[in-house]
């Protein structure tokens, strides 16, 4: 198991590559979902105000 994490001495390079890729791909999912929630609130409020 230790051998696996050690990556033949390249641990720093291999794990930071995978880590950075994971973080960037994750944030690319989280941001549009948060934006959607915000947009839905905005647009719903706008539609309600216009109906009254």
């Amino acid at each position: 198991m230790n051998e696996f994490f050690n990556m033949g001495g390249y641990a720093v390079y291999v794990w930071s590559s995978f880590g950075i890729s994971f973080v960037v791909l994750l944030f690319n999912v989280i941001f549009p979902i948060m934006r959607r929630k915000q947009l839905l609130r905005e647009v719903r409020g706008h539609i309600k105000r216009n109906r009254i």
Partner: protein
Amino acid sequence: MSSSSTLSLSDRFWRWFHGFGSPARFDRFAQKALPWFSWSAGILLLAGLIGGLFYAPTDYQQGESFRIIYVHVPAAWMSLFTYVIMAAAGAVTLIWRMKLADAVARASAPLGASFTALALITGSLWGKPMWGTYWVWDGRLTSYLILLFLYLGYIALVNAIGDRRTGSRAGAVLALVGVVNLPIIHFSVEWWNTLHQGATVTKLDAPSIDTRMLIPLLVMFFGYQLYYFAVMLLRVRNELLDTERRTQWVARLLMGDPARDKS
């Protein structure tokens, strides 16, 4: 107007084209397609990760450091693929003024910038132990850096121009001009003597890579591809909701049926 049975093939195509370009219809399509893209992307990325870390054997020259290939090559490929989509969508925006194409271009830019940044970062993390340096000003790396600036320039440009349609057109022109950079990236390793290795997988004769290394790479590759489509659809839905907020279909989508307006 002739009946539908006598419509020519090209008429049918244009009908389909305009129907598909309708924001309301595309939004419904995206809503249905999203779970399929998301789940298959998630499964393939996980499978590719496990395959790349455990199943693939150690490289006889590069040792374990070669495993960076599983995040580097798919990101590099996707940064080019995304650019082609963005430029094509830009062309459609300019020619037909199709709102959907503009939404696709705007939705693709941040993804393309992310893929390009990842390709550059993982590439330099690979270069340090293999070449002895994080960065070298060669053809491949420099043209890739220009690709990143093209994406960032597109994002800055469309957001800086107050009028949305003018911004879209300016962005589309920038994206189309930047297409020149794509062949430069592709042929850079042949035109200029460089540290970057040439093609391994896409060589026309047999690819010079072990099958057990290649399979996880292909799985990862399709995972990234599906990931792009999933996030792009998500962002396109946001763009459409934002720009079409005063239309009937959005009102129906959000208010029409309260039981299923969780979208």
